[in-house]
């Protein structure tokens, strides 16, 4: 499979409910900006598209844009809306509209975003909150791409992980000959997304050893990814626990924090406003 040319031609589908909410917003009101921000965050593909647009040569002019707020402000309300409409009109099919995909990819990604943000806050890395959320939301974009490239094969991957205690990357390699982390990293490079996002897409699970020193955001999102699965949002397998422990070491988490993340945080997810909002739309 020529992943590079597949990525070049890929069309990311925006969920109809998301597009509907977007089109219903009134672009004259100030509250619409906050609503727009919320809607964009509720859809992985929409967020990717907005970041990709803000990092295009035309809009970024060499400056990397890592936050969705900044990206939306840069593009403007109406450009975001026009872009979403145009991008959607070219989608060939709604490849992600089936329950297992929504459960293992959409919902898992939303929860990873919410948890990653919470980790950044708890670790007093407030400057990373927004990026942790966005990177958490997008970390599995490689799965979305594989599903668009060949939905039939992706369903085989879902079948395998339903039967065997293995991680996605192992099942994907078996079926596709590649995995979502490699595909995600290639897409990030092709779309000119910030380098950190590329690292996160490439390296957020399946660690054979402690990963080499990267930046905190990589560990925060990898840990968020693990916790989301552990909490029941996504596909969890035994090897994930090894990943989780490695991330706790890399983040140098005190015991009390580990306890909080593993025991208290799962209870709080369903109370999160954004989780509730996104859950209604997905």
């Amino acid at each position, binding site marked *: 499979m020529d992943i590079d040319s597949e990525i070049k031609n890929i069309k990311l589908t925006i969920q109809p409910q998301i597009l509907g909410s977007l089109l219903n917003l009134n672009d004259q009101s100030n509250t619409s900006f906050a609503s727009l921000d919320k809607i964009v965050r509720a859809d992985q593909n929409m967020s990717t*598209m907005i970041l990709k647009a803000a990092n295009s040569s035309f809009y970024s002019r060499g400056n990397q844009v890592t936050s969705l707020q900044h990206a939306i402000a840069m593009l403007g309300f109406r450009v975001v809306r026009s872009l979403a409409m145009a991008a959607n009109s070219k989608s060939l099919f709604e490849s992600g509209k089936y329950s297992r995909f929504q459960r293992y990819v959409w919902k898992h990604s939303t929860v990873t975003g919410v948890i990653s943000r919470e980790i950044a806050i708890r670790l007093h890395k407030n400057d990373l909150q927004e990026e942790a959320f966005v990177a958490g939301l997008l970390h599995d974009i490689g799965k979305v791409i594989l599903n668009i490239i060949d939905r039939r094969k992706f369903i085989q991957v879902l079948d395998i992980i339903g039967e065997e205690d293995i991680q996605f990357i192992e099942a994907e390699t078996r079926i596709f000959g590649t995995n979502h982390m490699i595909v995600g990293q290639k897409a990030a490079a092709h779309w000119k997304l910030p380098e950190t996002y590329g690292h996160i897409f490439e390296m957020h699970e399946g660690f054979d050893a402690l990963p080499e020193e990267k930046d905190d955001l990589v560990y925060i999102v990898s840990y968020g990814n693990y916790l989301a699965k552990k909490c029941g949002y996504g596909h969890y397998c035994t090897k994930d626990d090894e990943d989780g422990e490695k991330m706790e070491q890399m983040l140098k988490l005190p015991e009390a924090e580990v306890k909080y993340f593993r025991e208290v945080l799962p209870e709080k997810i369903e109370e999160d406003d954004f989780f509730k909002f996104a859950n209604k739309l997905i």
Partner: protein
Amino acid sequence: MNESSDANDPISVWEKHFLVKPEEVAFDYHFFDLYSGDEKKLLAHLRETLTKLKRPDLSGPIYLIIRELLTNSLKAVYKKLYLEYFIQEMGLGDLSYEEWLMIFKTEIETHMADNFSNMCRDKDMFVECMIKLDIGDLVIEISNEGAPSDIEWKRLQESLARASEIKDMSYLFEEDTTADDYQEGAGIGVPMILMMLKNIRNNNLGDFNIKVDNGKTVARLNLPVAVFMDSNSENETQKVPT
């Protein structure tokens, strides 16, 4: 110098009748947008030139023509930039012209062409406006790098053909030209230009054309020396040294 030598050396007409050397009125402006101040400089320069040629009254109409051509040319440059550095990078290259034009228009309306102006400067892409005295003509050229797309070229040719048949202002009221989705403005720029030219040149449409030449799109307008001579025949010719 007598009249026959004028015919062999038409540039001397300008010197003989208006005491103006061609190099004194030639100017060349590069535009990245229409609000950086260069537009005012161009207007001042144009007025000064036409005053030297004893037709300051033409400043308004000719400026309006230049501005319309500049606007169209800048739009062409902006579209080229947007297509190359945004639409195609976004993987939306297979959108129809109409679809990506909608996003383009939204971008212009949202940011008042600021992004385009900056991008043009980064990429050194501009619209050139040149005015010079040529052999027997005042020549105005508005040009930009790149050729129009097939669809734009076809529409331009149709617009020129339709507009060349117009007789008077009533043409503008014959149909609603704003209802066309491809249209970005009122859709009457080219007819307005041709009508003004007819008036300036005493109903002689003369030489106005838009061509693609050496990878550039060039709108060229020639105003024959007669335009300036006729007007001065009663009150100015006597003052011209012979």
